[in-house]
């Protein structure tokens, strides 16, 4: 520990040293994500993992961006979780926000018990797990779904421009991704629909409330069908395929590009823009309710 602190002090003593902009505690093997975060701004990065014996290492990692050199401190701590947690506390740079990033399927256990409480923000990916950790969380999956949410808005705009009294009475979400529950939850939340009943159907689940049905269907393709009721019954369809989102409504059709964004890109986007706006917590709650009807 003393060696680690001495090494950090020697880095801080350098004339070119720039105050870390935040502490980031990383867990998991997503080195590409960690490297990306380190390279855009100076941070104190602490990578933690479980091991029998406590060990530390501290290195300085610098990246050249244009004419600027960005240097971050990269600390690795391995050991029993409680000891790791105590060590991390001593190394957090004071007065700066702390992020925790875990991109691991397992979101229970040592990291969550011992490290997550030290973090102001926790970044995870619900594509990997249906469990959502408590506290201030950023779900990369929520960010990943943003373009689809946006295109659903455009699709509905088309229906409204066609018929102002158009109303959505049915939704079918076809998807192979484990994250479709979150999309379904978001749709219910935005439509202000609380499922009143539901049942397991072939390859999925169907939920109902007054004058509204939502089907969540496991499928090889990714599609969302919106059923509109107005002057006439109309169907709007959003299809994701080969990097494109295609919208079809009545005789109008258009395509927009779907940004297939990696975890690295999403983390950088979060870094640049901060938390995405939206109704995440309510969508998670409703999405889970829908899933419960399937079990």
């Amino acid at each position, binding site marked *: 520990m003393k060696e680690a602190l001495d090494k950090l002090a020697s880095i801080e003593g350098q004339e070119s040293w720039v105050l870390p902009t935040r502490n980031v505690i990383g867990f998991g093997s997503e080195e590409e994500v960690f490297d990306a975060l380190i390279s855009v701004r100076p941070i104190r990065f602490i990578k933690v993992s479980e091991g029998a014996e406590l060990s530390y290492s501290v290195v300085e990692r610098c990246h050249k961006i244009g004419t600027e050199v960005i240097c971050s401190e990269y600390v690795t701590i391995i050991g029993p979780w409680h000891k790791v947690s105590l060590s991390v506390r001593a190394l957090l740079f004071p007065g700066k926000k702390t992020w925790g990033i875990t991109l691991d399927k397992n979101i229970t256990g040592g990291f969550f018990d011992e490290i997550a409480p030290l973090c102001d923000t926790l970044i995870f990916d619900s594509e990997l797990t249906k469990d959502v950790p408590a506290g201030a969380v950023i779900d990369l999956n929520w960010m990943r779904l943003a373009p689809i949410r946006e295109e659903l808005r455009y699709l509905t*705009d088309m229906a409204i421009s066609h018929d102002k009294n158009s109303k959505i009475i049915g939704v079918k979400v076809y998807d192979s991704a484990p994250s479709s529950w979150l999309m379904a939850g978001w749709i219910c939340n935005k439509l202000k629909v609380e499922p009143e009943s539901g049942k397991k159907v072939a390859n999925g689940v169907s939920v109902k409330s007054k004058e509204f049905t939502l089907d969540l269907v496991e499928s090889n393709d990714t599609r969302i069908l919106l059923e509109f009721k107005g002057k006439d019954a109309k169907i709007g369809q959003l299809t994701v395929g080969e990097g494109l989102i295609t919208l079809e409504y009545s005789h109008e059709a258009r*395509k927009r590009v779907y*940004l297939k964004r990696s975890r690295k890109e999403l983390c950088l986007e979060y870094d640049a823009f901060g938390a995405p706006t939206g109704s995440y917590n309510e969508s998670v709650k409703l999405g889970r309710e829908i899933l419960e009807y399937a079990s």
Partner: protein
Amino acid sequence: MGNPFVEGRVLSPPSTILVIFGASGDLTGRKLVPGCYNLFKDGYLPESFSIVGVSRTPLSDEAFREKLKDGVTKYSRSGIDEEWWKQFSSRIFYQPLDATKEADFIALRERLQRIGGDTIPNYLYYLAVSPSLFGEIAGKLKGADLIETPGGVRETRLIVEKPFGYDLETAQNLASSLYQSAKEEQLYRIDHYLGKETVQNILVFRFANGLFEPIWNRKYVDHIQISVAEDIGVENRGDYFDKAGIVRDFVQNHVFQMLSLLCIEPPNSLSDAEGIRNEKVKVLKSIKRLTPGLVQKHIVRAQYGKGLIKGLDVPAYRDEKGVAKDSTTETYIAMSLEIDNWRWSGVPIFLRVGKRLSKRISEISVHFKQAPLSLFRGRQVESLEQNVLRIQVQPKEGISLRVNSKPPGPRMRVEPVEMDFSYHSSFGIASPEAYERLLLDAMRGEATLFTRQDEIEEAWKILEPVFDSFEELPLYFYEAGSWGPKEAAELLKPYGVRWARL
């Protein structure tokens, strides 16, 4: 029904083709394309984004890309990376166009359709051309069905660059010519000062800190200064500048925009573009109009003579290329103003803007009223400095607060010290170029940082009596490389204050 899927602010813009008119000009090579390159590199642009450069010169796509590469190499804040450039430049195209020929606009439409393929991208037109061409280009675009009704399948928007008129009447005429083809909500009047991080930070700083808003008023603020100093002369714009002068070139737009942001009342929401712009207009409307008799007392007008900048001899304004030998155009202006509303009544606001001054610096300073000295009587303290909040806009962006402090030692003394916040040391990264933020906002349809026509007109209304009295105002001269004419200091004397040291 309303659209239930509307969410908050959209982060990544939809598919867009940016069409730049005046593509062979300086702005395209220095700012627009390097700005887009950095946005692309940082992952902020949609996957289907293209640039189509338009101008009269016949050029191939390849030749246009080569020309732009030089600009990106020289002016990109992150330098140029061959791999990134290769990917980015494949999205750049060139279309020769004579703005007077309708057939050329039809050809442009066909080209845009081919580039868009089976997607329906938005079109964002950047008119980096003389304002005299705005109306004609917009009309031809409309005639070729390249400007569509807002809210349709494709959004079409126009970015226009200043000058927005020469006075109130010409500004109104310019707007009328654009309104024949586009609606106000499709017009994005760009003022690059509003894209600067520090200027955007004014609102955050005021409204996100409980500390400042309670004292942001006439009870605690003694006076405000806004200084915009340039060390360069008129460069190759002598012809234009000699007709416009510094008031039209800087005060009517950049300075009034900064002032209105600094002094606005809290808007309903920082994501409500119209709400913020409504409040800005209210500030401009509240600025006390100078009657012709008062102009002399409140304004100092001057022109630079020859001098020395960065160790080099520089010519007098009248010896610059494109400038009349007997020109009476001002290259420096100092003004005192007052905002006559509940919050600011009685707080003098001093503006000074000049070319060929000692250095390039833009700064807003808010000077707070002094603390009483009584507590320090009998000590070695003769005066207390005012607390000053300095918002540095360029070249280094940052904010500092001057506070009084006791220096170490056995004696009770008071010395001012600076509490500094600089973007680089706090966030560790350089601020993006102003144009990057503004281009991204225009693609997203986010209009907060663009100027609305009523703001333009109010700004001209404030300046009308000033222009009417120009001929009666003495024109002073100052040495290039100085801080302006000595008469500017006299302007502040009745208020018992001095210009901030820059």
